[in-house]
């Protein structure tokens, strides 16, 4: 055996100008070398052009469509007139209309789950220099999640022998119903809200808290020690992080003076000095601390990395999810992404002015387009965190909440009191 075969000489990488990849003949190429000057890569420039085109196209379509209210109102009154002429009572019409609105609202978490799972896989892939799903669907694996959902629908349901069968079946239902119900008072644009109730903020936190019961049910009923431990950890984590999350919103309510979420979003319209938007995140110190505490606690509430100790794959084999397969697992997954969307919508309403444009001359776009843009940016942060931070240890996780986040959020309430005293 010659020395050359034991230690083969690595050849120099060859830059392929047609597709922008560094190729090392007969060996792997190194992404770090490829990404040293990304703008020189044709693929990078093409991707940026596609992104700019998408944003311009969506903004153009939003500008063309305009606000949702004036578009829907004539349709509704026409349908109402038609139904009244057929002799349908007004009460039945309003109930049917509410059902239609509810079905549209239900589509929000479903479409969000289809999109967010694909987007998360794409983000994770590109962070790790992979391509992610590429084959299902016409463009970059766009229908991958639909295929996954069909697979989950057709998958056999395995219930362990030791499980409590009724509780095991009810747990995903108990998790997913509050996840859908919590969307009721959340605005998607100016006047684009399903149930405009006065106690919206309290309602969202109260209803969202019910999902914890479902998670404990799942953990306890599975008849599996990993599941039990995961369910208990999840319960401890969720109830703990609910406190700073709730207290982080208190300064927002103090400054806005109402619990109605769409009213809080509406109050933030306008600009200081004609340039700085009156968003709550721009209130000195109080706004920023409240936002950061709310963001951290929301990531923890959705059981995502770095706070995913209840379903840590590498130590608890997915925690309370372990014994679930098929559609039941899909419901857990759906509710997780529904809560991500809910947190992003709440943050957009509480801290980023809801449907208000960031600069005065940009207000030709309708409010729902600004909501969509803000929610997508915030959701990108959620998905980005997952692939950037390592997992918290369970004791550090609780310490961080009880010894740091909770005192900080309480101090922030005091700071908001001082700010109000100063303002009045």
């Amino acid at each position, binding site marked *: 055996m010659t020395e050359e075969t034991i230690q083969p000489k690595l050849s120099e990488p060859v830059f392929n100008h047609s597709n922008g990849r560094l190729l090392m003949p007969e060996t792997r190429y190194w992404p770090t070398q490829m990404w040293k000057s990304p703008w020189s890569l044709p693929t990078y420039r093409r991707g940026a052009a596609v992104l700019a085109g998408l944003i311009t196209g969506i903004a153009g379509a939003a500008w063309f469509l305009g606000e949702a209210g004036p578009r829907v109102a004539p349709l509704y009154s026409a349908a109402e007139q038609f139904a009244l002429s057929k002799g349908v009572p007004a009460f039945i019409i309003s109930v049917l209309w509410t059902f239609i609105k509810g079905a549209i609202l239900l589509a929000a978490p479903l479409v969000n789950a289809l999109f967010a799972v694909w987007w998360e896989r794409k983000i994770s892939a590109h962070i790790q220099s992979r391509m992610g799903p590429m084959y299902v669907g016409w463009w970059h694996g766009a229908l991958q999640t639909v295929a996954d959902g069909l697979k989950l*629908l057709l998958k056999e349901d395995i219930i*362990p022998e030791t499980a409590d069968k009724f509780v095991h079946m009810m747990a995903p*239902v108990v998790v997913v119903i509050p996840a859908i119900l919590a969307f009721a008072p959340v605005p998607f644009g100016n006047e684009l809200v399903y149930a405009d109730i006065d106690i919206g903020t309290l309602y969202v936190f109260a209803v969202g808290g019910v999902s914890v019961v479902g998670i404990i049910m799942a953990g306890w009923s599975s008849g*599996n020690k*990993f599941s039990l431990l995961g369910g208990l950890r999840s319960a401890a984590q969720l109830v703990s992080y609910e406190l700073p999350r709730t207290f982080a919103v208190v300064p927002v309510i103090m400054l806005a003076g109402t619990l109605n979420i769409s009213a809080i979003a509406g109050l933030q319209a306008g600009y200081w000095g004609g340039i700085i938007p009156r968003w709550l995140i721009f209130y000195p110190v109080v706004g920023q601390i409240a936002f950061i505490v709310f963001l951290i606690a929301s990531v923890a509430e959705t059981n995502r990395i770095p706070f995913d100790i209840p379903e840590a794959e590498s130590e608890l084999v997915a925690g309370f999810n372990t014994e679930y397969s098929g559609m039941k697992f899909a419901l857990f997954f759906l509710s997780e992404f529904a809560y991500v969307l809910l947190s992003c919508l709440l943050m957009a309403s509480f801290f980023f002015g809801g449907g208000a444009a960031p600069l005065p001359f940009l207000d030709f776009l309708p409010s729902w387009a600004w909501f969509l843009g803000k929610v997508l940016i915030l959701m990108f942060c959620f998905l980005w965190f997952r692939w950037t931070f390592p997992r918290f240890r369970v004791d550090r996780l609780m310490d961080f909440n009880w010894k740091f986040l909770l005192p900080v959020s309480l101090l922030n309430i005091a700071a908001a009191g001082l700010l109000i005293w100063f303002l009045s």
Partner: protein
Amino acid sequence: MLLAYASILILLVIATLFAGGSLIAAKLVRPRVNDTLKRTAYECGMETVGETTVQTNIRFYTYALLFVIFDVEALYIFPWAVVVRSMGAVALVEMGIFLGILVSGLAYAWKMGALQWE
């Protein structure tokens, strides 16, 4: 305004129909192959040792107790936060006293080691 709460009731019906409907639809289309080995608990391929109803750490209970205290406090603080701007300094002082009592409780729990995870 009451109509908005009625629409939440309708949303509850829709959500229940969705959750039940998806489970029933899955039950109609999925295959079913019985296998006793398949129905054992998944514990990394090892056979399950002992029962699942094991004793768990008391820490979970103390955290739950602390949570109840502070969550009730949150319920009190929400209506206060709505009216604090119109009520002025008196409301601020009152809530300061109320929060002070609870925070001293948290400090006591911290000192006694209730927040220590072992």
